[in-house]
């Protein structure tokens, strides 16, 4: 059966489940005794197991299965929750997330091995032994078999035997045989079983020992480890042929060592193959890399869809109404109808936008975990406060905003917040706080990342900039604080003395800035020494529809995104000065670089030689520039259309839009011009 059609749903749902699990685990860590949370996690693991089993992802299924086992014992109070177990569960969660993202990319769960984790999980189950000294034994349980653990320890010598056997192509199994309660001669029965098995198998261990069994010194069940050429089914058949046996459980046993070894051998083989057939493989690889078949999906509240449906039906009504207006109809009717139409299209636009909106919660959700891990790693006590998770943002923004936010938070935690002793000596609370706040603000969404750490050391930033050759010493001295802080966004800039795993490589903040700007947003930093710093990210609500200023350049019309326009002014041509081949004008006591739109856009018939010039002042971060245009047409809401692949690579044009009269107007990418 072709499962690919369910793949999207599978991925979407798994992600959601994992997110829930993440949250429950975090809560569980704080409140060890909450049975409800355990139940939640268990349910998620169970659902995931079922889902991945159906989709044929066996690695996912087996890992979740083992998780389920541990969770089951936790639920039934056989095991006590402790930090170690939660850490391992988190590890499992990460691995599962890894599998899912691999599936999303390639459609396959990949070859990442979770044996190590499964061993650890099994280790918890046999928890009387310390985790680290746990035997590296793992049993991959076939889903069809019972979950009942077969308790039999494998010592080193038998492990060697198993290892050897598996190298020779023999199978190794664990058996649990339960005799029927009305069995008269248990030892004799056991003897028959042993005899039968020994025809084709080698029994390497039994629990209780063979002596005990012979002396009838056992209850109804005993466990065996045996090596055989037979398959699991064959052994089961053999045993089934013996009477007075109530139950048989068989599990294959693999020892980690050789399993790993074999895998690596296989990998080597496969890479070898790849090299051999590199030529034909090339094509294959490119077809493979094209594979990501998974589209982007949005879960939509059914109410919103209903609303959309209503609006569309209204649209149809107005269409018929317009059709009915014939030539004899009064102009009044027409105007009325058009007004009505306008109202509907506006609501329709709103409704469609809302469909694309996703609460920012989806991004925020992963941060508690990240902060927890980081604070453990760095030995800093950190509390994370989040608010405004319900703020809605366009789906495309959601996908892109995660990484920049991670950078900001890492920065705050690593550079911002001091270690507990320092905080104590400074008289601050030992717990550092990171605040993550989101709120809508007009046509944009603001996300703030605030910490109460040491703030940005401006002197250090300056000296570092001089050291890196970004600035001359004299320049650094006259730089004001705001400008200095902006140096942080320079590529390759870092004030950290030590490069840590978390940050300090200097690749962080410039990436943040570029990303946000590519989304049409802006980043700002506010900082106060030893009080903390705050990153303010401002993003447009949606990317598809923007407010723009339409201008004339010559006889052509262009759109400039309103979000980047600071103001519009008129200047006299005579006030323009040339400084190093760059036209500037003194404006409000600052020099404003002047760019002529007709030159940038290669317009011929423009008359920018006149005395009064209309200048659109555009800003990008702290930079501003004035663009001379011929005429202003007005503000308009425009729908951004891509110019497509054929015209990609034209820098000054960000896209196109279709005007009311059907004409295409191009959108000027002012960001690229500054």
């Amino acid at each position: 059966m072709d499962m690919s059609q369910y793949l999207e749903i599978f991925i979407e749902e798994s992600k959601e489940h994992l997110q829930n699990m993440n949250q429950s685990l975090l809560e569980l860590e704080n409140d060890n005794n909450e049975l409800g949370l355990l139940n939640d996690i268990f349910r998620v693991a169970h659902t995931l197991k079922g889902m991945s089993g159906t989709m044929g992802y066996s690695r996912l299924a087996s890992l979740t299965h083992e998780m389920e086992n541990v969770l089951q014992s936790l639920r039934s109070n056989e095991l006590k929750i402790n930090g170690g177990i939660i850490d391992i569960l988190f590890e499992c969660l990460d691995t599962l997330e890894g599998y899912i993202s691999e599936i999303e990319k390639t459609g396959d769960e990949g070859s990442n091995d979770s044996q190590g984790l499964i061993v650890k999980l099994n280790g918890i189950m046999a928890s009387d032994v310390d985790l680290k000294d746990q035997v590296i034994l793992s049993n991959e349980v076939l889903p069809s078999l019972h979950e009942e653990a077969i308790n039999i320890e494998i010592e080193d010598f038998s492990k060697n035997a198993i290892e050897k056997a598996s190298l020779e192509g023999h199978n190794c199994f664990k058996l649990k045989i339960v005799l029927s309660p009305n069995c008269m001669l248990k030892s004799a029965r056991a003897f028959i079983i042993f005899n039968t098995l020994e025809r084709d198998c080698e029994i390497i261990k039994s629990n209780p020992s063979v002596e005990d069994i012979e002396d009838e010194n056992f209850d109804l069940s005993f466990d065996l480890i045996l090596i055989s050429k037979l398959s699991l089914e064959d052994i089961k058949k053999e045993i089934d042929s013996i009477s007075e046996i109530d139950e048989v459980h068989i599990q294959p046993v693999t020892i980690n060592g050789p399993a790993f070894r074999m895998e690596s051998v296989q990998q080597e083989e496969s890479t070898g193959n790849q090299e051999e057939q590199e030529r034909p493989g090339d094509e294959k690889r490119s077809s493979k890399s094209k594979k990501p078949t998974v589209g982007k999906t949005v879960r939509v509240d059914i109410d919103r869809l209903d609303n959309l449906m209503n609006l569309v039906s209204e649209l149809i009504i107005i269409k018929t109404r317009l059709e009915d207006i014939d030539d004899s109809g009064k102009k009044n009717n027409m105007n009325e109808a058009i007004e009505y139409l306008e109202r509907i299209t506006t609501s329709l636009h709103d409704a469609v936008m809302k469909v694309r909106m996703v609460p920012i919660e989806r991004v925020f959700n992963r941060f508690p975990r990240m902060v927890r891990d980081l604070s453990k790693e760095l030995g800093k006590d950190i509390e994370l406060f989040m608010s405004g998770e319900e703020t809605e943002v366009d789906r495309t923004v959601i996908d892109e905003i995660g990484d920049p936010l991670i950078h900001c938070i890492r920065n705050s935690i690593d550079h911002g917040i001091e270690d507990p002793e320092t905080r104590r000596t400074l008289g601050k609370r030992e717990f550092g706080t990171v605040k993550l706040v989101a709120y809508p603000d007009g046509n944009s969404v603001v996300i703030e990342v605030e910490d109460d750490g040491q703030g940005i050391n401006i002197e250090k930033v300056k000296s570092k900039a001089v050291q890196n050759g970004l600035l001359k010493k004299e320049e650094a001295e006259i730089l004001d604080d705001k400008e200095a802080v902006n140096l942080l966004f320079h590529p390759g800039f870092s004030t950290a003395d030590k490069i840590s795993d978390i940050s300090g490589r200097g690749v962080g903040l410039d990436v943040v800035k570029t990303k946000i700007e590519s989304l049409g947003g802006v980043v700002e930093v506010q900082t106060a020494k030893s009080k903390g710093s705050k990153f303010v990210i401002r993003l447009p609500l949606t990317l598809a529809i923007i407010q723009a200023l339409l201008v004339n350049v010559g006889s052509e019309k262009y759109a400039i995104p309103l979000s980047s326009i600071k103001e519009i002014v008129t200047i006299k041509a005579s006030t323009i000065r040339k400084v190093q081949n760059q036209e500037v004008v003194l404006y409000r006591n600052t020099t404003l670089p002047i760019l002529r739109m007709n030159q940038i856009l290669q317009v011929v018939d423009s008359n920018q030689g006149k005395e009064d010039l209309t200048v659109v002042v555009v800003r990008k971060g702290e930079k501003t520039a004035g663009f001379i245009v011929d005429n202003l047409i007005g503000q308009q809401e425009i729908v951004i259309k891509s110019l497509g692949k054929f015209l990609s690579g034209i820098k000054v044009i960000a896209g196109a839009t279709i005007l009311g009269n059907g004409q295409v107007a191009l959108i000027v990418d002012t960001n690229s011009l500054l």
Partner: protein
Amino acid sequence: MENKMVATENQYVLFKLDNEFYGIDILQVETIERVMDITRVPHALHYVQGVINLRGEVVPVVNLRKRFSLPEMPFDDESRIIIVSVEEIVVGIIVDSSSEVLQLNSDEIEDAANITNNTGNEFIKGIGKHEDRIIILLDLKKVLDIKDANDDVE
């Protein structure tokens, strides 16, 4: 798609450009439009006339006269924009006129290798002979300089 020539017959959309007939594989043609308002795109290649609004989609348009270095002519009532789709890229090409679809048998098509003409034969996929007309069959991928989709993957 260009290997369709081995099939016994193929349909071609014919168009005229500077007194010569050209043909494009009909499978690459989406629609044929009258010349409409074209918005110039600055900094685009010289032969890109601009973009048009094709029923709500923005589609780039190539002026084939400029592409083939033929003398430029103002558009008239006969001028057409043939919307083609090559490697999933939709582009319009402006031609002098276009009115017919022609079936060509493979024995009516000659290899372009030994023929040179003023358009430079790298754009030519073959020469069709039908009755006493000569039809230049174009390789659109080369005309529009569209790279293989696979090239972008690496």
